[in-house]
């Protein structure tokens, strides 16, 4: 992903980005819950041009039996990209990238869902990416925590997926496709907006410790903004709305 593209101009002379955003500005985010009638809970997240939709089923009996845990529920999480979600069509099927993202997403959600409430059961979380413009794993995590909330699964906190990165030696919030392709670093995080904890973290590229700190500061700032949109989306369906 990184390197070899140093000559691509991603920042304009006035310091703004190609799409006109300031360095600490995220793409527009829209969120809806209850979008899939067949699911127990569901959510739709649009972040920039990314579209992530998530369905939650369960809690249900865990099959096969060997996956059961006597003291808690297991989360069965799948992240999948639709064949038409990318520039070149991708073949249907579970690839290595999807497997890894599914695994770390599951671990992020396990950190907030009160699994001990549902011994020997399973909760299925199905994340489908319908359009990809860099940042789909983050949109997927946000969608998953919203779908779990919509399904009435008790959680300690929501999880906001958000990434910052580095382009042309400058730290920026929420990389778009060009910035992701030609940038120097990407730092996606899963943030619990109420507790301020991190439950998901990845990074690739090259960041100094100062740059990491700034990127994470941007992530936390954006997480607070996205959290407000999440609460508003839940309030739109269920009423209330004070975070």
């Amino acid at each position, binding site marked *: 992903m990184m390197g070899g593209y140093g000559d691509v101009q991603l920042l304009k002379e006035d310091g703004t980005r190609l799409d006109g955003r300031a360095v600490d500005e995220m793409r527009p985010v829209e969120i809806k819950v209850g979008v*899939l*009638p*067949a699911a127990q809970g569901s959510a739709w997240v649009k972040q920039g041009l990314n579209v992530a939709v998530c369905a939650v089923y369960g809690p249900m009996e865990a099959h096969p039996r060997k996956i059961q845990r006597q003291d808690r529920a297991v989360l069965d999480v799948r992240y*999948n990209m639709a064949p038409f979600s990318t520039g070149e069509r991708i073949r249907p099927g579970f690839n290595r990238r999807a497997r890894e993202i599914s695994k770390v997403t599951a671990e992020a959600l396990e950190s907030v869902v009160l699994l001990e409430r549902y011994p020997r059961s399973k909760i299925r979380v199905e994340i*489908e990416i*319908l359009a*990809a413009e860099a940042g789909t794993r983050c949109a997927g995590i946000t969608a998953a925590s919203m779908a779990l909330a919509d399904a009435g699964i008790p959680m300690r906190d929501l999880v906001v997926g958000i990434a910052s990165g580095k382009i042309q030696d400058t730290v920026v919030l929420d990389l778009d496709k060009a910035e992701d392709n030609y940038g120097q670093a990407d730092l996606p995080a899963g943030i619990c907006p109420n507790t301020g904890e991190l439950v998901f973290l990845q990074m690739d590229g090259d960041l100094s410790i100062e740059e990491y700190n700034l990127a994470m500061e941007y992530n936390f700032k954006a997480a607070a903004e996205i959290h407000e949109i999440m609460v508003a989306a839940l309030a739109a369906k269920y009423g209330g709305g004070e975070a």
Partner: protein
Amino acid sequence: MVAPVPNLLRQEIQRLAAQDKRIDGRGRWERRSVDLEVGLLYNAEGSAKVTWGDTVVYAGVKFELRTPWPDRPTQGSLMCGAELRPVAHVKYEPGPPSPESIELGRVVDRGIRESGCIDMDSLCIVPGEKVWGVMIDIHVMSDGGNIFDACGLAAIAALRTAIVPAERFDVGEDHVLAVSSTPIMASFTRAGGRFVYDPCEDEELGGDERIHITLGDKEHLHSLQKGLKGAFTPAEFAEILEVARTQCAELRDLVASKEGN
């Protein structure tokens, strides 16, 4: 996954049928509300979302450049596939494509292909060397019954609003994909002993055989499929074919109303 009370459901559907009623209150040939949106997905060259009652389906069109088959040097190709992913219902499991999803994709594919709405010669760029491959992928997101009709509608709407991305492949200017007609599917399930149009989830669960009919612009038949266990008479088929004619014409107008935006 086995549904818990299909026998009680069957009895209830039977009881209602005797009074000429359906479990969701509709008339026998009445359709649920259908909403169609097109061009809503970045990266897909054509896309459509169909919300059909509790069923939600997306379709996306992608193009690829390929070498034509030696015996058909001027012809491009069309492929239509459907995925019944576990997102769509608790009954769908992860894993390789199920027979149900393969049947679904193939029935939709046949209706579009056999209608001749895409002239395969129009997909030729350089004879013998370069042709377009058109791929329609259907993603079922919520199965609330009658996914066949929803998939057929999403596929043809995505196709009819698709832009051929010639500039990206450096083979000329982007242009609208030429699609000369609008094949539409109508599906029927035997519920309570008689056929009903547009079965809901309960009717599929407690019902018997289903019949899928795809009609073209001139009301010619382009694909038929009988699925599941059960038998029907020619008179029954004649009756549902009449219903299909009306319903398909209405849905064809719906697709037309979304084009040219």
